[in-house]
């Protein structure tokens, strides 16, 4: 049986407001953004002046001017996760990392993070963009528990604002930079007991969401949005039936793509606002970090005798769900 013992998050510091995007004069305005995607602000590793002047025409420049990178954010998130789990870096036996926009292909992101944390253990990248939280837990859940180390550190980190073409009216409104980390154990009981994991994909649609190595982010917005809502609802419905979910008591976290989409989903499933945890409205879409960062940001609000369902969708196209029982605080 797997448990999450601690979760952490870290976000970029520069705030991009809807007014800032409106002032770029690219055919968008604050009202349109708020109505369409329900995001008021997002955070970026990029300086505002850089965005204003260059529109990030050449993403290579973005790396040079960024205040922090995906590794920096991952380190901070990892420290918080380990602190909440009550462990030191030396106790971590495996590091898994997901990132949509690595700085290097080799050495891997996981190894770079492990080295900076002082974790001298097995570490590799395990990647599927936005559904990383479900992928990592499903991957671990598929493995024979007897071979798992005592503590596993999972991380998802991305600085996707560095891939945005800020001359495009919609792309700049979407992304925010952030990282999340979570400590997993099959040996020790933690706050979250893993009940169910799913990870699936339809890669025949893999070109619907892309980040070109040397170019910008692009997506077929309408198709991706429809897919996201439908797939998330399907994932939730299965959990409702198989695990007798009661939304008056249990908690839902969705993929932090946009608030409007999440509201559609919660309306469809009658999930009250009080039991819907999210962070996208003021941080933007943090890719694979969004959902676990939401979990981390609500960590102190975890109450036992509830279930927590996480449904995530994204590039690949891939999707997954995770269901937890929230355990008493120890």
């Amino acid at each position, binding site marked *: 049986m797997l448990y999450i013992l601690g979760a952490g998050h870290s976000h970029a510091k520069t705030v991009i407001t809807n007014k800032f995007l409106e002032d770029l004069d690219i055919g968008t305005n604050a009202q349109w953004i708020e109505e369409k995607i329900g995001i008021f602000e997002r955070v970026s590793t990029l300086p505002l002046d850089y965005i204003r002047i260059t529109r990030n025409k050449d993403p290579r420049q973005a790396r040079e001017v960024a205040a922090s990178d995906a590794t920096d954010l991952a380190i901070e998130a990892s420290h918080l996760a380990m602190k909440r789990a009550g462990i030191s870096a030396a106790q971590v036996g495996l590091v898994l990392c997901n990132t949509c926009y690595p700085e290097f292909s080799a050495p891997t992101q996981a*190894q770079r993070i492990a080295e900076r944390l002082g974790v001298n253990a097995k570490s590799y990248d395990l990647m599927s963009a936005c559904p990383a939280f479900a992928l990592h837990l499903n991957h671990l859940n598929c493995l024979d528990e007897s071979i798992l180390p005592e503590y596993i550190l999972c991380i998802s980190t991305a600085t996707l604002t560095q891939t945005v073409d800020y001359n495009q009216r919609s792309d700049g409104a979407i992304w925010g930079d952030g990282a999340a980390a979570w400590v997993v154990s099959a040996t020790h009981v933690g706050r979250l007991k893993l009940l169910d994991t799913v990870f699936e994909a*339809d890669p025949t649609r893999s070109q619907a969401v892309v980040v070109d190595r040397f170019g910008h982010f692009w997506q077929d917005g309408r198709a991706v949005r429809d897919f996201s809502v439908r797939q998330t609802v399907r994932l939730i419905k299965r959990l409702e039936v198989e695990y007798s979910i009661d939304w008056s008591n249990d908690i839902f976290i969705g993929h932090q793509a946009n608030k409007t989409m999440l509201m559609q989903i919660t309306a469809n499933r009658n999930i009250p606002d009080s039991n819907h945890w999210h962070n996208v409205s003021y941080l933007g879409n943090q890719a694979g970090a969004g959902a676990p960062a939401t979990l981390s940001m609500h960590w102190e609000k975890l109450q036992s005798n509830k279930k927590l369902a996480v449904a995530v969708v994204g590039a690949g196209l891939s999707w997954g769900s995770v269901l937890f029982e929230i355990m008493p605080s120890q």
Partner: protein
Amino acid sequence: MLSIISIGVSYPDTVLTNTDIEHYCSYPKIREDFPVESRRVSLPIKYIKLTGNSDIRLSELVAKKTTTDLGVEAVLEAVKKANIDLNDIGVAIADTATTLQTTPAESQRIIGRLGLKIPCYDVIGVDSAFPLHMETFANWKKDRLPKYLVSIITNTPSLFVSYGKDSSAQLYVGDCAVATIFSREEKGIFNMDLVSYKSSPVNSTLLSTNTSKDILSIPSLAPLKIHAEAFSQIQSAKLEKNLQELVSKKQKLSKIISSHLVVKEAEAMVSKLYSSASYLSNVPTFGYSFGSTAPAILAQYSTEITAGEKVAVLTGGADACIGAVILTKQ
């Protein structure tokens, strides 16, 4: 028991010889006993001559084969050799150090092109991808295991290398993809006796030193760099460590495979530490392709290995990892 059912390999057709490099890249005379005589590249030789691939962002436009193309071909060959239907594959994982899109995952690009809708994601182990993938499949819980699984390791470093008088990477790298079909239910051409994948990021020469980036780095937005002498020293150290472990385990091996840049150095080490085994390589003819290299060598020589013989595939180089697989030919 994890079995290899089949291995498919794909190389681009273009052969870049040392003479080509001297003529087209204004490279100083390459000595006759240089460890690599030729390598397979995806770029047209005319393009290399005219541009030196000075802007690696353009290489995809002219490449005869991309990382994904080679991956698709390798899978199709593996399926054909396995005498199964493509739709029999239940899950796919992939590794690459040379993706052209950082999102979606390379596995999703390849499997999408093949028209399959199966769980697929990237498990990045760079040089040690083969043992990492095998370890993953070997430790999968039986009730969650499909009948056939595929590991795809695909690299086209030639697209990310500068060709000119100052670049040494061009002398070593070649392009290659390998797809290995595994099963835990069915007998295959090789049975896995042992697999090991270990990382030690802290104090890794490739991560923590000031000169790390000069020894080997694959930045996402800049040309690939290899300092061959320093890198082959790292490979030698890992090969020696692997061989000493094999000696201590008293494995009766007849063949040893690794992706060492300098075959003579590897042969000498094997001869010294494991005289009963012969060393197999194809790096002098095909070049070095990161994680694809070692399993491609295994595929090339698989028909020459007789039933009952044990072969070790030893990995470790472009990352902070070291891996080993011992197989028995069926």
